[in-house]
């Protein structure tokens, strides 16, 4: 793997003022981004959250605020039931895009389980890939109707 750029860049970017957010653990310069042009490729919920979601909701799920907002997912009482996050991930809402084409049922279940049991959330991880599959069909029906 080519790593030639890292040394000079670190000198430039080691300035603490630049990164006010915790550095995510993505391997800098790593060619495998956990994605293709068609989908996300990780299976682990934490990895998937980091790649697909954390850019907006924050690595710690604290959210972000500007002219509009990315809501906090940390300590979020609405994550108690899987149906709500599954719906948002598959259908999107406003500035939250739909990830239906890019995540399969098992990946959605993995992310939701991660959210329900991490980032200050302490719920039972109550969703399986089978459940997601059923919800996916149902949401699609609702949209048709």
């Amino acid at each position, binding site marked *: 793997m080519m790593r030639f750029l890292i040394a000079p860049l670190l000198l430039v*970017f080691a300035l603490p*003022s630049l990164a006010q957010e915790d*550095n995510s653990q993505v391997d800098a*310069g790593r060619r495998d981004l*956990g994605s293709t042009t068609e989908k996300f490729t990780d299976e682990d919920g934490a990895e998937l959250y980091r790649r697909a*979601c954390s850019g907006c909701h924050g690595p710690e799920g604290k959210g972000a605020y*500007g002219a*509009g907002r*990315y809501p906090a997912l940390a300590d979020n009482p609405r994550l108690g039931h899987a149906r709500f996050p599954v719906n948002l991930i598959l259908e999107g809402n406003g*500035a939250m895009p739909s990830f239906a084409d890019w995540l399969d049922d098992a990946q959605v279940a993995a992310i939701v389980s991660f959210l329900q049991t991490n980032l200050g959330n302490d719920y039972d991880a109550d969703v399986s890939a089978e459940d997601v599959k059923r919800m996916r069909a149902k949401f699609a029906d609702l949209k048709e109707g």
Partner: protein
Amino acid sequence: MSQPSDARSPSRRDLLKMIGLAAGSTTMLHAMSSLGHARQSPYKGPIDLQGAPQGRKVVVLGAGLAGMCAALELRNAGYEVSILEYQKRAGGRCWTLKGGDVIEELGGYRQKVEFSKGQYINIGPWRIPHHHLALLDYCHRLNVPLEVFVQENQNAYLHSQTAFDGKPIRYGHAWADYVGQITELLAKSVNKGQLDNALTREDTEILLESLKSFGILNNDYSYEASLDTAEYRGYPDAGAPGGGLYDAAPEPSQPIALEDLLKSRFWEKMRNHTTYRHHAPMFQPVGGMEEIAHAFAREVEDLITYNAKVDRIRQTESSVEVAYSAADGEGEGGVETGDYCVCTIPFTILSQLDVDVSADMRRVMRSLHYHEAVKAGLEMKRRFWERDEQIYGGITLTDLPIAEISYPSAEMHSDGPGVLLGAYVYGPHAYAFNSMSPEERLETVLEQGARIHPQYRDEFSNGVVLSWHRVPWMLGCYSNWDDRGRDYEIAATMDNRLVCAGEHISYLPGWQEGSLLSALDAVRQIHDRAVKEG
């Protein structure tokens, strides 16, 4: 064109000339459309609004191109206008980054742009089709000089990580060889009589002749290394036409085998430059896209309140009341009241505000999602793509996540530095970039680009990588309608006294032309209503 010429009546062109001479060019424009010239735009020249009632006020939300265009035309028509804008600059997505600029991102990252004097990256819009008539007309009226934007460059590259040992291939080689060899296959099957049922004998002969000429085939209908094909695909490195005695005679170059081209999947990218939106010539403003925003701002800046974050929009039967606060948290907010409102705030944000609109409008606002995009600007100390590789402008396409490298169309052949577009990322890869710190994004972009241009190692001086989802006043790139239908009509129709405008209210999403055409339509809706209400 296809009509036979008629000696008795003047030709259509003569008629147009007469009309053009007799009246202004706008008349000519109208005449051209009525005479059946297909003009590829609904723009019919400057909007003309007569009879505005006295003392009517319009509040415009957002000082992007849509907001400023609406404000300019409404004021011209006699309305009182004020604009509320979240940022401390005008232009919205029409945004050019230059040395000294600072980007504050959602999530807390900050990037300082370190480009040398005169260098820039168009981090949002970067090219203008020749058929975007409204935008071109405003550039004309507002004195924004344009230059050619090179979209297609036969000497740029196609690159695949898995084909040709990961080495980039000149676009023109792949193109000529692909066309040559599929033409050869077709010609040979036609020649064997396999299409006899579909074509008459005469047509078959013409087809063969045309395939031979189009594909540069020899007398046996083969596409092969020859001085004829070299005339199209180019010559070998040590065999280009020269002068004098030594090494002067050109030599043929060896085509790339069809199997290799097929496996490379380069053909997926070969129509990229030929979509109607990318037909040559394309244009860019001299000095950066934001020159267009500056030109609009010269007209309407006195109407803009900056640093005004719209929080709430109330509508009554006779007025619109917009409450705003200081975007930077310092300073006063206020309430702006008008008879009507043009709202150009992107739906990503508007859908989160407290807005009095119909339930239908609210539903549509929440169901419209926005695309993702990441763009990188990399300053290189030396324009190695020009000097070492004879690439002047244009775009290299790759299957790496960076997807594109585009070479600057400005200052070609200068000795100074240049800024490359180092990445234009979409899809899941863009979310992966969106989740990285700026330094990780930059390293990733550099590492990938160096696979195509090893000079990156020595020549890179500084860069910036923007993920549009991290832009505090956008929360996205541009609108992504699946299916416009009824929802689009709802979004585009005046709701009580408020009408939405902007890129998202157009069939040209992601193009500045769409913002302007939508603004002009919004202005028309407001004017019609105001005239009716008196």
